[in-house]
């Protein structure tokens, strides 16, 4: 982990950052699709508005976790005849999600040990 070029971002990710990176780990998506996927995957708990989402994307782009991308060749969704702007997870981004998932798994383990997750305790 010492060689990680983005070691400065080893702090835990915010819930929104994490969810945005998670949905992009599945596939490249455009803004509205990211919003819907985040809402869906977080069961409505995380629901960024337009301004917040794009500031997050801007930051993730600047941190090298996400890249802007052209629409995939097979994308059937256009916006008013123009191809949409897509966002793609970078290797650094993938690493960051993995690291955060690992951290969360450790936290879960701890919670389980302390019987704070009763339905999983057995």
């Amino acid at each position: 982990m010492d060689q990680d070029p983005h070691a400065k971002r080893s702090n835990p990710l915010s819930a929104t950052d994490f969810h945005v990176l998670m949905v992009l780990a599945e596939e490249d998506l455009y803004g509205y699709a990211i919003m819907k996927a985040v809402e869906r995957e977080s069961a409505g708990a995380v629901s960024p508005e337009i301004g917040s989402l794009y500031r997050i994307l801007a930051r993730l782009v600047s941190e090298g976790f996400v890249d802007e991308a052209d629409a995939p060749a097979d994308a059937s969704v256009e916006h008013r005849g123009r191809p949409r702007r897509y966002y793609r997870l970078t290797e650094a981004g993938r690493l960051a999600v993995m690291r955060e998932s690992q951290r969360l798994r450790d936290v879960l383990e701890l919670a389980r040990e302390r019987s704070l997750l009763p339905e999983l305790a057995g």
Partner: protein
Amino acid sequence: MKSPHRIFELFLLLFPRAFRDRFGASMRETFEDRLEESRKEGTRAVAEFGLRTAGDLAREGIRERLRPTLVEAKTSGLRNNWMGWGMMMGNLAQDLRFALRSLARRPGFAVVAVMTLALGIGANTAIFSVVNGVLLSSLPYPDPSGLITIDEAPNDPGGRPGSMSAPDIFDIESEAPSLSSLVGVNNPSMTLTGLGDPQVVTVTRLTKGLLATFQLTPRLGRDIRADEFGPDAPSIIVLGYGFWQSRFGGSPDVLGRAVTLNGVDYEVVGVAPEGFAYPSTAELWTPRRMDLEGCGRGCSTMRPAVGRLAAGATVESVQAEVDALALTLESAYPETNTGKRFLVRSLQDRVVGGVARGLWLILGSVGIVLVIACANVANLLLVRAATRTGEVAVRRALGASRGRLITQVMVESGVIAVLGGLSGLALAGLGVQLLPLFSAGGIPRIDEISIDGPVLLFTLGSVVLVTVLFGLAPAFALARTSLRTGIGSGATRGGEGRGSGRARGILLGAEVALSAVLLVGAGLLLRSFSQLYAVDVGFETQEILRFKLNLPRGRYTDLDQITTFYRTLEDRIRTIPGVEAAGSVWGPPLGSGNATGTILVDGRPEPTPEAETEASIHPMGPGWMETMRIPVLRGRGLTEADDRNAEPVAVINKAFVRENFPGEDPIGQSVRVTVSLGYGSPTWRIVGIVGDVRSRGLQAETEAQIYMPHGQYGPGDLAVTVRSTPGAPPLLPVIREEVRAMDASLPLYQVETVEQALQRQIAPTRFYMILVALFAALAAVLAAVGLYGVVAYSVSRRTREIGLRVALGAGRDGIVRLVVGQGMRPALIGLAVGLGSPYWEAA
């Protein structure tokens, strides 16, 4: 359609240019996607989405501006992390401190700016609380959007919807698949005895249980069952929660106990849940004992029927079904249903539809006040910006970026807006207390208004909008300051830039124009109000007190007994000192409870349904016309001699003559009305013509009216009308004593002066007029303050020039003309535009 996009673009401007260049297109795309999504969910969803997005863009845009974005940092290759969150917060705190210090340095400016905004935001918040509480909040029932009402449609577009007949209600309920339930309702007044003092209460009689239609379960016991209607319906009753609490102390043993109404015992079977009251004054519900044969389709005794839509149905689908059904009923029952159509409305629309236009108009007016307030504060800030060009130039020279300067000015605007918003909220709190008093019963649901979540959101939105509206112009004006002109001009004495002078002129012109629009609007409302006040109601309204009595049929069995009671009471009242005249009538003018009947003229063939004419029926005791001072125009009035044993005679009004006897002499002709009040309906010989009386309202056309002797027609419940001499002592306690002396179990109800009834009629117009006049005055004062500020500033900036002019020989008058002329030009242009605008609209 374009406006949401425009607003979005405006909010997008809050983001730094570099950010917009990179992400603006994607953000627009996402905005359109989300807007489309919320449009599918209806107007409310769009409004919520708009508010959420506006708040989010404002917050995030300002945050983004408060720190140079990392995107910029990356592209410039710096990857500088030093401008992090802490730095941003530090900047913000610094800007806040700076803003507060600079406001504190000029407290006069701060107070004027904050109070101006407080008035604008406060007035807007108060009025929005009315719009929100009355129009936007759902009615307090489960799934309120599924509730509808059906009336008999009025014959002409401006007319009032009529009552329904029970058979029509049953047919509609069974034949319209879009309805899951439809209940006929009527509200007779009945005398309650056995629970404290006797009292007249409104009892709601139903054609089926009401709670199920409203999707409510009883608090106690059960609802009225489907098998408990019809001629042999049991005497059972469901109590309102309030009635249960006040009369039975909320006792759970109430079930099975008796409530005595008009001498008949009704067994309590249930208690409605707390807060349920339909119609709005109802507290007791019983099944209607209806004999369909006896009171048929022509007998429209039910108030609007209330019902619930079936799943997936809409008001429009029900309307289409009842339109088709009305035609079927017309061919099946031509004698009663010819021309009869039904009007379906949502319950919400029926309750508040009458005031919706007026309230939106008021919100529009008060919105104009806010715009004027913003223009005023923007003007003040522009003036201040002009005095700060030197300071700004120095800061820029020292390395402050343009964005940083704009941010700082916006923070200052934000502080003023927040302070104005908080003060405005306090003013609105006061307004919410006062507005129900102004409305005098003219606005439904006004008691429900409060400063709640949506209202707070509205205020917050106003503050954000206000910050942007009045903050942007001065911010950009400052940011445009060039180093050379700024430093060269010095901080306080330089000439003002042509651009900002023009901006001030435009703002001032707009203020004057908008306040002129409001003043003209207030003038128009005042005119219609005074016209309403000047309506000739056909009688003298001063010094008249009236009340109703309801003689129970159980004890007052025949008409002679009833007549003797009223005539004796009238005689006793006439002997009270201070009473000038007294008389009784059924269906008093501008009051409740009258009926219309079809007119049949003797010697003419029975009219076809299309040719039928109607008249409102007013049985009266001797002396009532004299009490009201309704003039007898021809023939004679009704006297004591016109009793049960005399020939049945009637007098009619001018409208009756116009409709039934055009070009003929009606006196001596005989007519019949098709309605009986329970004591027969003889043929009346017309003996006189009296003046028209506005019976149904100040704005309603006078209908044909027929007056007949009470002793020849009934009924048992009359409005006793008493005219006092001017300056007489309060009569009501003495009158109560007289009634009690004759029958201790008879309560007086609907006690009011005719002036009060009149006030009720003009209450909505008066409410709108007071508010628009208030806002117009406020707008005019704000515009005047703005004008003064601009002229005073311009003079203070030109003292040197003016001094020079005086030194060169300019006279005092010339200088005044110069100054006033320059200040007045934008004001006069604004005035011309403002005064012209209503005429464009009218054209």
